[in-house]
């Protein structure tokens, strides 16, 4: 059978829209069926928002792109109903090692505590990731959810006027026109929609090349992230090794700026590099070779009226830290529930400005982290090189230097601490990591997990306290949930949500970010926080 990325998983089919007398109008059109567009479409469909997904292709992405999918992504995928197949297919890892020259200088564990359903990371080829999401989309269609995907539908123009958004779409049968109330542009780093709208995309280009080789081999390296600074097999440069499913290993070798890419990509030049790293006797076959360069940049705004940019179309980071797809999926997570409430008329359209603000904040955090990593990995001046080597040199013997070693600060979700959607933090001495703006932290509850019990609505969570029914009166769907810290033998729930308090009440957004918290139930305070969290209506 052909590889998954060689199959037309959503082949072109003529749509009745192409024969309509007047352009068909859709409430939401998502452009781009990469990880971000797929996640956005799944989320909207699960909320029963009719969504049309267009892609210029009819298959999942080819070759080596993302492999590291973070805990938060898996938690979002759990909410979308496809976390388990991703974990089953992926390679789970939490630990890493850092080498300098021939020495191991540092080891880390990204999830050193128990009481989480999901690991710090799984490694999974991006095409497998996308294939799992596509399969989930097919399931939702079978359940009758309002989602459609159209392959080989290439958007070639976008215009806007008072009546809405018009898209020109090129297909094998020629062009047609569509109209949308909302457009979600997940059309990747080169975003044609960004260009059609004449929007900026500024940032910093890094002058470096990285060779990616995916090799198939039998090897007994542990399933950890291994990173080398200045190793004997790639002098003056860095290297990275990751295990993927199907016996495939990702090798990432820094090459420097002044290279001839075409020459470096030749197998006869790649093989000796790999043998220098893996040993002369190593038996491997090449699955894929590519060379990439990168940039750190973002759009000034992610929301332009009813056109929303999400994922690589809105921001790009260096791959160190695995913050590309992982942060793009958080964009989708952030916008889907807001769009749902706006379309239902239960929140004002201005709520979408919080998408812009929160995700720009997250993008800046990701860009800052990945820029710092890049500057550590590839020092830009002689003295920067001296300090980098000094840190690595000290790290082996002196624990203080280890936090300075920066081989990539791996993706963690942003805490929207300053967001105007946040309500009060009235829980005295409440734990820092569950303060308003933070994504809810998982913890065991009975035989299950806290995050899986949150569902897809706004949640009012009572811990060690009962709560009255919230339905009736409010137009917003609020689920009331009560749990007991007794249900968690580990004590994680208490530590993560109560601190020294005996009980607490949390208001949690549909994207599982915490909106407000209190020591006791207070109807008025909750109402105010609910209003703030949904953009000031209700």
């Amino acid at each position, binding site marked *: 059978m052909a590889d998954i990325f060689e199959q037309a998983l959503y082949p072109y089919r003529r749509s009745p829209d192409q024969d309509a007398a007047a352009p068909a109008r859709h409430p939401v059109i998502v452009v781009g069926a990469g990880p971000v567009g797929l996640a956005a479409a799944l989320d909207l469909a699960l909320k029963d928002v009719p969504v049309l997904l267009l892609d210029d292709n009819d298959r999942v992405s080819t070759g080596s792109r993302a492999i590291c999918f973070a805990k938060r992504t898996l938690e979002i995928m759990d909410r979308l109903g496809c976390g388990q197949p991703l974990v089953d297919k992926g390679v789970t890892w939490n630990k890493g090692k850092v080498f300098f020259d021939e020495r191991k200088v540092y080891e880390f564990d990204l999830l050193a505590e128990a009481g989480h359903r999901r690991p710090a990371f799984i490694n999974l080829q991006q095409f497998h990731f996308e294939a799992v999401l596509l399969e989930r989309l097919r399931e939702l269609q079978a359940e009758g959810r309002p989602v459609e995907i159209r392959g080989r539908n290439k958007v070639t123009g976008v215009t806007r006027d008072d009546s809405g958004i018009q898209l020109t779409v090129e297909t094998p049968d020629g062009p047609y026109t569509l109209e949308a109330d909302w457009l979600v542009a997940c059309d990747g780093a080169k975003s044609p929609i960004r260009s059609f709208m004449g929007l900026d995309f500024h940032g910093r280009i890094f002058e470096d090349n990285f060779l990616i080789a995916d090799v198939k081999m039998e090897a007994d390296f542990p399933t950890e992230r291994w990173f080398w600074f200045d190793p004997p097999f790639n002098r003056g440069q860095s290297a990275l090794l990751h295990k993927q499913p199907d016996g495939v290993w990702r090798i990432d070798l820094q090459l420097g700026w002044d290279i001839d890419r075409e020459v470096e990509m030749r197998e006869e030049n790649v093989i000796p590099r790999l043998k220098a790293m893996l040993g002369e006797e190593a038996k491997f076959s090449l699955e894929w070779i590519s060379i990439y360069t990168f940039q750190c940049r973002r759009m000034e705004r992610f929301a332009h009226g009813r056109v929303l940019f999400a994922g690589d179309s809105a921001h790009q980071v260096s791959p160190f830290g695995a913050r590309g797809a992982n942060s793009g999926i958080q964009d989708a997570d952030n916008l889907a529930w807001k769009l749902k409430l706006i379309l239902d008329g239960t929140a004002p359209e201005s709520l979408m400005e919080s998408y812009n603000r929160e995700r720009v904040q997250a993008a800046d955090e990701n860009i800052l982290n990945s820029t710092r990593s890049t500057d550590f990995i590839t020092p830009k001046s002689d003295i920067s090189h001296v300090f980098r080597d000094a840190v690595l040199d*000290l790290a082996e013997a002196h624990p203080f*230097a280890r936090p300075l070693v920066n081989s990539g600060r791996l993706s963690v979700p942003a805490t929207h601490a300053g967001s105007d959607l946040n309500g009060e933090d009235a829980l005295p001495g409440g734990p820092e990591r569950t303060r308003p703006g933070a994504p809810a932290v998982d913890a065991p509850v009975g035989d299950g997990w806290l995050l899986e019990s949150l569902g897809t609505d706004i949640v009012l969570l009572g811990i060690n306290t009962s709560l009255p029914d919230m339905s009736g009166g409010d137009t917003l769907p609020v689920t009331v949930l009560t749990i007991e810290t007794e249900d968690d033998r580990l004590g994680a729930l208490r530590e993560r949500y109560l601190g020294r308090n005996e009980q607490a009440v949390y208001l949690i957004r549909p994207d599982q970010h915490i909106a407000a918290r209190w020591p006791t139930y207070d109807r008025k305070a909750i109402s105010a926080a609910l209003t703030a969290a949904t953009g000031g209506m209700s």
Partner: protein
Amino acid sequence: MTDLNTAPNLTDADGFYEALIAAHEGLTPEQSTALNARLILLLANHVGDRDILLDALRKARGTGR
């Protein structure tokens, strides 16, 4: 904000100065630069406080005036 202490504070100023120079003895300029970098990192960690460190960076950058 906490300021960097720039009043005399070394228990044995001459002795420290001598030890500092001695630590570099026999090193090439590159090795000396590397030693200095390690020394700065060790001392910075001992100080710890971010404001004091930033103040020190500012003062050092200003060539002492």
